[in-house]
């Protein structure tokens, strides 16, 4: 918007008349090619990795429970690997991720009313074996089914949790449940006639999910913005608060396993790869091909890299990062940078790509 006002009136008119249409001389964005590259090189490998990591976690939890109490030393590596894989797909909130409450069942967060603690305590105290039967468990409270409950059991449990075999039975139920969700996500994306990959790839002809290829590309664009919004608003915004005095590290995601900022780093890296990882068919190259796109693309790439560098320079634990001198200020600066990037994505980048991902009248009424 600011750029337009600097143009001469005639140029501004031409620009205005072309908004929303492929401008003369610029390539019509090839949404179909973008979707193909992203499904094959981005989405499917990530869900494959997630399915593998959750299967490995399930195995590790069974093994770690052999002595009645799983410790971080026994199961921590598998837990972290599964969380890493989850963070790499957490922003893909469309298609199979929306089915069967998978998203909330994997990670009920933010948990503003302490539901995970209460429901887990209730489950542990009632000791009903039938509650852990896979179907029953999967259709029960989402709060005890996923990573936050497992994290509490591994890193922040009461000693009496392990005084009976039931504690480990819960751990195994969570492991099997997460594994089943990971397998389901991959299968729904990849396998069979109804595979969501095919739905996205065939969007160009129109199908019951997508009006056309552009509409499918919009889901990817929204996922890009979603990753940044998760980081800015939830993962940094919630623990940091408005001022340093208002900071509360225990509002961070995964603070018990000391990996809040590792989560952020993986989210940001996933966003960067989503934006520019596709070579010639990427959101980045599509942006460059549009008028005034080259400068915008440079700005977005630089901002993503600055964010990643800044988070990499921090410890993985947000608790530790806040304890460091000027810790709050450094994290707040990352949050501000993320917010500025969000403005860029929701405004100029949306407009140049023809993919409205932020505040718009599109999501209107």
């Amino acid at each position, binding site marked *: 918007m600011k750029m337009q006002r600097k143009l001469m009136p005639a140029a501004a008119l031409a620009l205005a008349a072309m*908004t929303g*249409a*492929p401008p003369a001389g610029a390539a019509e964005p090839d949404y179909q090619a973008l979707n193909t590259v992203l499904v094959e090189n981005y989405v499917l490998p990530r869900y494959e990795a997630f399915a593998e990591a959750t299967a490995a976690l399930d195995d590790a939890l069974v093994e770690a429970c052999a002595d009645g109490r799983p410790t971080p030393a026994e199961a921590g590596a598998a837990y972290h690997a599964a969380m890493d894989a989850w963070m790499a797909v957490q922003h893909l909130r469309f298609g199979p991720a929306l089915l069967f409450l998978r998203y909330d069942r994997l990670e009920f967060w933010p948990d503003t009313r302490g539901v995970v603690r209460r429901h887990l305590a209730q489950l542990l105290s009632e000791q009903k074996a039938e509650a852990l039967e896979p179907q029953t468990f999967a259709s029960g409270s989402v709060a005890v089914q996923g990573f936050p409950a497992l994290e509490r059991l591994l890193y922040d449990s009461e000693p009496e949790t392990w005084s009976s075999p039931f504690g480990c039975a819960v751990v195994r139920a969570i492991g099997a449940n997460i594994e089943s969700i990971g397998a389901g996500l991959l299968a729904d994306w990849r396998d069979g006639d109804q595979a969501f990959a095919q739905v996205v790839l065939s969007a160009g002809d129109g199908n019951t999910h997508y009006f056309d290829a552009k509409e499918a590309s919009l889901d990817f664009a929204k996922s890009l913005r979603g990753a940044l919004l998760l980081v800015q608003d939830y993962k940094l915004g919630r623990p940091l608060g408005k001022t340093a005095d208002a900071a509360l590290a225990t509002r961070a995601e995964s603070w018990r396993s000391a990996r809040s900022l590792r989560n952020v780093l993986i989210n940001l890296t996933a966003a960067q790869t989503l934006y520019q990882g596709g070579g010639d068919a990427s959101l980045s190259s599509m942006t460059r091909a549009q008028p005034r796109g080259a400068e915008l693309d440079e700005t977005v790439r630089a901002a993503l890299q600055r964010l990643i560098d800044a988070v990499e320079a921090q410890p993985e634990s947000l608790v530790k990062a806040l304890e460091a001198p000027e810790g709050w200020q450094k994290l707040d600066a990352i949050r501000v940078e993320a917010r500025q990037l969000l*403005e860029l994505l*929701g405004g100029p980048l949306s407009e140049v790509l023809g993919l409205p991902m932020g*505040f*718009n009248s599109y999501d209107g*009424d």
Partner: protein
Amino acid sequence: MMEISRRRFLVASAALGAAWGLAWPGDLRAAGQRYFVSACSDDAHNTLVRVIAEDGRVVATLPLPDRGHGAARRPGLREVVAFARRPGRFALVFDPLSGEPARRFDAAEGRHFYGHGVFSPDGRWLFACENDYDNARGCIGVYDASAGYRREAELEAHAIGPHEMVLLSDGRTLAVANGGIQTHPDQGRKKLNLETMQPSLAYIDAESGSLLHDHRLPAVLHQASIRHIAATADDRIGVVMQYEGPRNDLVPLVGFHHGEEAEIALPNPGDAVLHSLRQYCGSAAVDVSGQVLAASAPRGGVISFWSMAERRYLSSLALGDGCGIAPSGEPGGFLASSGYGKLMHHNALSGETTPLGDPAAAPVAWDNHMLALTL
């Protein structure tokens, strides 16, 4: 696609001039200055309502408690009511020229606004589209503006989801676009009855609340939510729809109705135009001469223009995420706004487009609706 529409546009505008011979009634430019009111959002995500002059100059910007939607002008006074976007419950009353803080009133217990309303011609009664959500029932709240917007009565909308309405020239018949979609604030904006929805265009007597007559779409189009409505001075109506059916259907999204005609006329502008609208029209407006209906399609990034008399498609203007649309003071003229902050004047008769703006004002992303008023 857009090249085609531009060519079509030239053909269409030539035909317009020939067919109509520039015959519009009398002096349409009412005395006074024309202003436009629209909800919007600034760079810091503050939700606002902004008043602009016809040249785009910002006259006033007021904060809103949350995202706004439509607005209504109180006849005879410098007073505008801006409504919350559903499922919001606030309405703000303000003088569009003074910039003084607004007064607020809220929807009744168990009701939320849909975001649109209209005043009686004497400026006393405000009618607001509302959701009686616990009973899955659409209703119209009646507020006494002379008594601080006290809620005095409630009319039946005679369908689910009354979204926007106009008051006809008799001063007592409300034509209501009933979208047909059931929602409950406990479930956000989730659509609860897409399989069974029955949108309607209902003519309701504002004094008795009784249903005069209503009109539905053919059964195959029951998922076309009749959401927005505009009328000419002689009560010819344009309605615009949002389709909730399978994504690979191409269905008509613009309809016309007048008086007691049984059917809503649904002209087919051809697949290319339907495709360009992407199953979603966001806002409707009629120009001051009553000749042109503008139907914005933010998902398609076009504003489409239609002949009210001939009930056919005329032309389109490309405007990415363009949704707000309101009649300017000239025949065929509209102001159009976009979620990317663009503002322009377009005349559907001459084809002329002029970008507008206010370099001195903070940029905003415009929300769905623009209200035109003359003060």
